[in-house]
């Protein structure tokens, strides 16, 4: 695991308030290239908030205040006039509930590349095929590319959404509890997929399932009440956490 690691993104002293409620408190966290980083912690501790900061999808503005920085390519993504559309092309996201567009399987993948200027049918075909293959779903859908994505099973839909996220060739893929709506077999497929994807991408995943975090991730961050309590190599966090809070959470002696 301790192969050479380099930073892909870095969260530095990040504070975030929703109105008067502070949802993130001085969070510092590295995101290493070609590694899977898992964010764990009890509900409402700010996992999704932190994740959404990374591609600037936090859904609120007027009452949401942010201090600190997130460095990506040595630039703070919270700098004024930062091009968030460009950022999101490089930091893709997969949501908790599978949410394919109500379009054909083909269109789901081709949609974003086309808007981003790839118009040639042949190039699009290539991208669609590659993304579906990379997301381990090509075999299951190649003979029904024109049928609606809504007809797929939950697990297939989620892999389709991952394929869709790949279609913009991002550097980082953020996943917010991507398996929480799936059965164990579909979950296992997505976990396998993550381990393969991480060879070419950097992955950050929020999960409620500690076994999942332990199985798939290289690094784990434990958050509690908006604070990042502990960050470390996954083995260390799950075998021998240094912080008592982490220990308590991991062993279920909580509250």
């Amino acid at each position: 695991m301790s192969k050479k690691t380099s930073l892909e993104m870095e969260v530095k002293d990040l504070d975030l308030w929703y109105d008067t409620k502070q949802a993130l408190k001085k969070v510092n966290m590295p995101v290493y290239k070609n590694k899977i980083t898992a964010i764990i912690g009890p509900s409402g501790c700010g996992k999704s908030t932190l994740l959404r900061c990374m591609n600037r999808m936090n859904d609120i503005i007027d009452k949401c205040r942010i201090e600190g920085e997130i460095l990506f390519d040595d630039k703070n993504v919270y700098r004024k006039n930062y091009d968030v559309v460009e950022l999101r092309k490089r930091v893709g996201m997969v949501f908790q509930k599978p949410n394919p567009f109500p379009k054909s399987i083909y269109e789901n993948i081709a949609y974003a590349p086309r808007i981003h200027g790839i118009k040639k049918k042949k190039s699009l075909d290539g991208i669609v095929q590659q993304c579906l293959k990379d997301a381990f779903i090509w075999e299951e859908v190649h003979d029904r590319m024109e049928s609606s994505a809504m007809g797929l099973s939950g697990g297939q839909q989620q892999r389709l959404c991952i394929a869709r996220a790949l279609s913009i060739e991002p550097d980082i893929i953020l996943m917010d509890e991507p398996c929480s709506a799936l059965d164990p077999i579909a979950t296992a497929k997505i976990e396998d997929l993550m381990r393969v994807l991480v060879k070419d991408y950097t992955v950050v995943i929020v999960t409620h399932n500690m076994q999942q975090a332990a199985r798939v991730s290289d690094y784990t961050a434990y958050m509690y009440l908006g604070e990042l309590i502990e960050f470390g190599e996954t083995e260390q966090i799950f075998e021998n956490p240094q912080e008592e809070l982490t220990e308590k959470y991991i062993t279920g002696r909580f509250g």
Partner: protein
Amino acid sequence: MGIPYTPLEGLYILLAASSLLVLVIILSFYKKLGIGKEFTYAIVKGGGQLVLIALFLTFLFQTKLWIFLIWILLLTMIIVGGHTSAKRATHMPHAFQITTPSILIGATTALIVLALSRAMPLQPQYIIPLAGMAFGNSMSICSLSLDRLVREINLNRTGIESMLSLGIPSKQAMEEYNRLSIRAALIPTIDRLKTLGVIFIPGAMAGLLIAGTDPLVAAEYQIIVYLMIVGGGIITAMTVAFLARKKIFTEYDQLAEWLYKE
């Protein structure tokens, strides 16, 4: 020509017609429909407004000052229209910033076309009713499209977020919902256009017929008016969609907070 009685005779007739109102109120009370009070209020308010405007119009038609006064009237129309329509988007902050310009642009375009095509002579007798129709129609189309747009965006929040997260700009992300809202807003107008003369004789034509105009001319005029209404309406709905983006998304292409309260 026109309606064959004086204002005084009209008042008697009005009183006679009011007996219908009394009947309705009694019926409503008896059947416990619970609309008696509101109905009375609406009639009194609407009637009062009409009488006031009639008095104002009487004055306007006689004075040379109408050139100035008509602006006050138009201004009132646009402001009232903008605010009424803005109430459709309950949580959108300063929604009138969208509705007012949308109604203004749509209705004004229609009126300018009418004026240039000489369908609307520049006399208060023509300007005022036609402007009323243009503004009124633009207002209802504005309300419909804004309501539909906000509803669609809310229903498809996750879909839109997925698009945003794929680096698709907000403009493209809401394109489909714009189309839906514009179409939805125009449906009543188009339906009415289709059934023109069958289900009902529209206001302008009714007025003209009552005034004794040749039915063919009246029909022509009604078509002109309708074209203006549809044209102005489409412009209004498009302006709503265009302006609403700034309210629905933040400066950084995030869905805005107020949507979450809808």
